[in-house]
């Protein structure tokens, strides 16, 4: 008997609905739920895009002006009498000579009518301190300049720069602006003479930090970041991969390895400043390594990114199908051969992804570096891993903290540089990954 029992009208209970009717009745609700869910997703994504858009437009909008710098054209008489009274071209004498006076003299020559000391001081405030340094470097590099007249575009003071970029209100009351009426008049004259122009700001990309915003540059931070991150990668990737391979492939599974695993996961969640304190206590106080150097910074960041790399590497190793291990072991490969020849190459792309995430994390990290003195004001470009250095995020932090108006745009520009750094790094990693990835 396999005929379906059909309810006869006589004995049928109060009209039963067929399953398909019930399904149809509920269908509208189900579709509505799905539509709602999709809508939530769309809203979430649009919010994300919106915020990223706002972030990028404000940062880029603020940053663009930082790539230009107002400069003043000066005809500087390099007075040999004044700079090198003995005429011996002694570098020591040349480096400590009074270049500032020469710059001031050239400025005064442009405005012979300014005679009072107070006015002259106000006039000279228009030119940046950086002009003195530039001139000294030029003369030190080429002593033949002594006694000649050179025409230089020297950086203007940051207040002048702000005025030229429209960040200062000319019409405000005199006591409310940083440039006085007479200074504005002089600037107008300079501009009329074609001696005041905005140029591409090369200094920003080649200089180290400075208290003067007009000559402050990002290069010190870039180099410091490069050294720090390169070392961090060098320390953390091999260590992390080795730890992951050991835990995943060789270590016995017992209470101890469970404990280690739990602790690695905990370590990934430790606030980064704690790693900074650890670095201060261990690397600087105990091992006596110097402060503020990329080496110590990278050691601290290594501690910070190790858990990330270990966890990602273990996940990558776990995702290698066990059949590959069995195949290799089955023909008599030793466990090490199995890992190095088969498992590791297959897991490498995943491990690299972990390393990228870790490095990106390290790139933006400031807190642990504060603890080991990488927050210091460092003017010189670091020449090695033992030279005091700043890193980009710390540089951004320092500039954001500075009172001068001109540092606002510098901060944004530094953020742009940091983001560019991040993108270059990620692009490199993606290329590397593609090379290692086997499509079969």
């Amino acid at each position, binding site marked *: 008997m396999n005929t379906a029992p059909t309810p006869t009208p006589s004995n049928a209970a109060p009209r039963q609905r067929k399953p398909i009717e019930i399904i149809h009745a509920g269908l509208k609700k189900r579709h509505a739920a799905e539509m709602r869910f999709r809508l939530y997703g769309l809203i979430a994504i649009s919010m994300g895009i919106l915020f990223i858009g706002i972030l990028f437009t404000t940062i880029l909008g603020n940053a663009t002006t930082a790539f230009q710098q107002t400069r003043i054209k000066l005809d500087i008489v390099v007075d040999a009498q004044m700079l090198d009274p003995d005429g011996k071209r002694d570098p020591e004498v040349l480096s400590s000579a009074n270049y500032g006076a020469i710059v001031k003299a050239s400025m005064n020559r442009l405005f012979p009518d300014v005679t009072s000391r107070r006015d002259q001081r106000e006039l000279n405030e228009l030119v940046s301190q950086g002009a003195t340094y530039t001139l000294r470097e030029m003369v030190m590099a080429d002593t033949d300049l002594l006694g000649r007249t050179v025409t230089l575009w020297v950086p203007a003071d940051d207040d002048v720069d702000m005025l030229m970029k429209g960040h200062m209100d000319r019409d405000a009351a005199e006591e409310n602006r940083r440039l006085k009426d007479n200074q504005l008049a002089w600037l107008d004259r300079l501009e009329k003479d074609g001696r005041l122009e905005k140029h591409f700001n090369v200094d920003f990309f080649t200089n180290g930090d400075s208290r003067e915003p007009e000559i402050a540059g990002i290069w010190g931070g870039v180099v410091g970041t490069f050294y720090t991150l390169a070392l961090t990668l060098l320390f953390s990737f091999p260590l992390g991969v080795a730890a992951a391979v050991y835990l995943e492939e060789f270590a016995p*599974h017992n209470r101890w390895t469970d404990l280690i695993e739990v602790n690695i996961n905990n370590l990934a969640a430790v606030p980064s400043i704690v790693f900074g304190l650890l670095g201060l206590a261990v690397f600087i106080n105990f091992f006596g390594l110097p402060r503020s150097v990329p080496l110590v910074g990278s050691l601290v960041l290594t501690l910070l990114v190790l858990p990330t790399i270990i966890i990602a590497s273990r996940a990558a190793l776990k995702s290698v*199908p066990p*059949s*590959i*291990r*069995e*195949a*290799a*072991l*089955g*023909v*008599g*490969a*030793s466990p090490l*051969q199995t890992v190095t*020849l*088969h498992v590791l190459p*297959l897991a490498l792309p995943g491990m690299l992804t972990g390393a990228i995430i870790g490095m990106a994390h390290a790139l933006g990290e400031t807190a642990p570096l504060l603890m080991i003195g990488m927050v210091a004001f460092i003017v010189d470009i670091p020449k090695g891993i033992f030279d005091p250095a700043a890193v980009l995020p710390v540089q951004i932090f320092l500039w954001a903290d500075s009172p001068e108006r001109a540092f606002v745009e510098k901060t944004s520009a530094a953020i742009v540089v940091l983001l560019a750094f991040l993108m270059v790094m990620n692009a490199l990693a993606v290329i590397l990954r593609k090379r290692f990835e*086997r499509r*079969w």
Partner: protein
Amino acid sequence: MNKTSFVDSSVKMAPVAGSTATVSRDKRETVGDIRVDHPRVRCNNVNVYYGDKHAIHNINLDVGNNEIIALIGPSGCGKTTFLRCLNRMNDTIKGCRVEGEILMEGQNINAREVDVVPLRARVGMVFQKPNPFPKSIFENVAFGPRIHGLAQGKADLEEIVVTSLQKAGLWTEVKDRLEEPGTGLSGGQQQRLCIARTIAVQPEVILMDEPCSALDPIATAKIEELMAELREQYSICIVTHSMQQAARVSQRTAFFHLGDLIEVGETEQIFVAPTHQLTEDYITGRFG
């Protein structure tokens, strides 16, 4: 091509009516000839535990020279577990413990101090799912000889690869594309590639764990043909769920049930005139 069709096996199944079983279902000791003269592998009282679970109990079995022995039985009866004892693959399973004596040429390979690397070169294994390395066909076969240092120079290695592929019956199909990925082959070709990889290190015994379960009938027929040829040089121990396959390829058959080795005998005897009631029930399809 083997003319034997698939359903109609060369060995006839025992008819249900003509029961030959004389041993009751409750008897758990092995019946039949567990021993052969000059065995390649001799197992004495092999027990396997997964943690607290006693997976297989007191197995005594010989694997002879140049024979194919089929291990049959319902799922979870311990066939694969036993097979994996023979090349210590159970070592890789967490919590698995193997007790007993497994002798090869008088040496107990189950002893803790035995190095599994040379053992696995002597006892090769082909797995249920074809598992070629994600490398070229050539590299797949060359891997074993290379890690064991079997080849003197490049020419020698190439020769080993070619002969292995020839023996595995794959050479004509892949000779023009040795540099292509092994994972790009069809399922049956992949499994033969795995066999080629196994015989490239010239093992004495080949363990096959349901090698055809993922393959279509034509690929299965090819592998079976291949096994018959390989038998001339190697001993083969095959786990299979297909009784027809066991009947077609093997000389001896061992029937496992719930961790016990129930009956061992000549394949024909097992399928035509089983002694144990459980064996008869299984091969006649009453359970399993």
